[in-house]
């Protein structure tokens, strides 16, 4: 695999966020080894880009939460290696974009921030300190054509269908089988930054399929120490092995005894999930 980076920007030419994504893409394309992908042509004739996509990795720039560019990649089943959302970054920077196209200092600064974010990947992280148990025992139940698995020991759950497993003062976190089946093929995992301190139930990144974005609601409080970087190239591990190989993040725990009071054990989650599946039409 060569290192070509294929940049697929939003095509909202008539809106501020779209215009910014176009400008970021153009800036990126000035570097060597970066190829631009026109979303309109990609949609019309994917074969035009087959070669560069086969040889490289895809970076997506979404203008807003309609996520046209991500959805296009999803519908064509192209795995996304890296992505950024202009409106979300603007919000985090306290910049109000509005609808009209702008060309001022604030927008210039935002473009700089976006460019930096696109190039800083693979921050330093410690190797996983989590000691895995040799085998995980599961129980399962079926609903229609679906079978839902839940691990029986050493896992706790929140009512937002995220799990946590503990090894010493390290918590490993992921999503349950129910989530991965609901989302179907996971195309992208958005990991939190190393060193981020979070409270229980804070957002811990998200995972995304062509169907939806699922926010990871952290079952515990702590500091992000490790993210599962295998998911960068193989987000499908979340589908294949949601409780083991498809883990998402590891935190150094800050107050597990208190967090635990608001978590479900296997028996409680198994019953909770059965009820939930019976109530919603999956």
């Amino acid at each position, binding site marked *: 695999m060569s290192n070509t980076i294929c940049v697929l920007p939003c095509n909202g030419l008539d809106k501020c966020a779209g215009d910014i994504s176009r400008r970021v893409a153009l800036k990126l394309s000035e570097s060597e080894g970066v190829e631009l992908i026109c979303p309109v042509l990609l949609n019309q004739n994917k074969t035009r880009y087959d070669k560069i996509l086969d040889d490289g990795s895809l970076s997506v720039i979404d203008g807003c*939460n309609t996520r046209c560019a991500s959805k296009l990649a999803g519908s064509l089943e192209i795995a996304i290696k890296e992505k950024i959302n202009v409106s979300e970054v603007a919000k985090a920077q306290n910049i109000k974009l509005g609808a009209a196209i702008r060309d001022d200092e604030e927008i210039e600064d935002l473009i700089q921030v976006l460019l930096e974010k696109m190039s800083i990947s693979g921050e330093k992280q410690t190797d996983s300190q989590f000691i895995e148990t040799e085998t995980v025992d599961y129980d399962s139940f079926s609903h229609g054509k679906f079978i839902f698995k839940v691990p029986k020991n050493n896992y706790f759950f929140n*009512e*937002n269908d995220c799990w946590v497993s503990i090894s010493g003062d390290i918590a490993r976190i992921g999503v349950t089988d129910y989530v991965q089946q609901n989302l179907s093929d996971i195309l992208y995992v958005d990991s939190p930054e190393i060193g981020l301190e979070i409270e229980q*139930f804070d957002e811990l990144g998200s995972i995304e399929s062509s169907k939806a*974005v699922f926010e990871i*609601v952290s079952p515990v409080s702590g500091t992000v120490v490790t993210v599962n970087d295998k998911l960068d190239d193989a987000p499908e591990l979340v589908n294949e092995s949601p409780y083991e190989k498809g883990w998402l993040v590891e935190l150094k725990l800050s107050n597990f005894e208190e967090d635990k009071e*608001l978590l479900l054990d296997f028996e409680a989650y198994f019953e909770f999930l059965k009820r939930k599946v019976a109530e*919603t039409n999956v």
Partner: protein
Amino acid sequence: MSESTFMGVERDRIDWSPRIDFSKCNDCMDCVKFCPHQVFEVNENEKPKLKVKNPNNCVVFCRACSKTCGPDAITFPDKPETTKMIKAIRKAEKEAASDE
């Protein structure tokens, strides 16, 4: 525990549901199509068309519909505040139970 509780607290005591900024909403109804819990309702003849009909059907801490919203018109209450409130209610209930 009945289906109308969250972490053992009655659902209607937890203030968690989408807030819609109608100055931004563009009536695309992506949120309605997305939410499997019938939180929203569409009234074609009313203005605005979109209504948060069943706020207590909303899954506490879920903000997924806001992530489908292109114009970013949906917000939610503060998470840490909500967690604090849930903990306080649980504590009060525990104390009340041990007093009996």
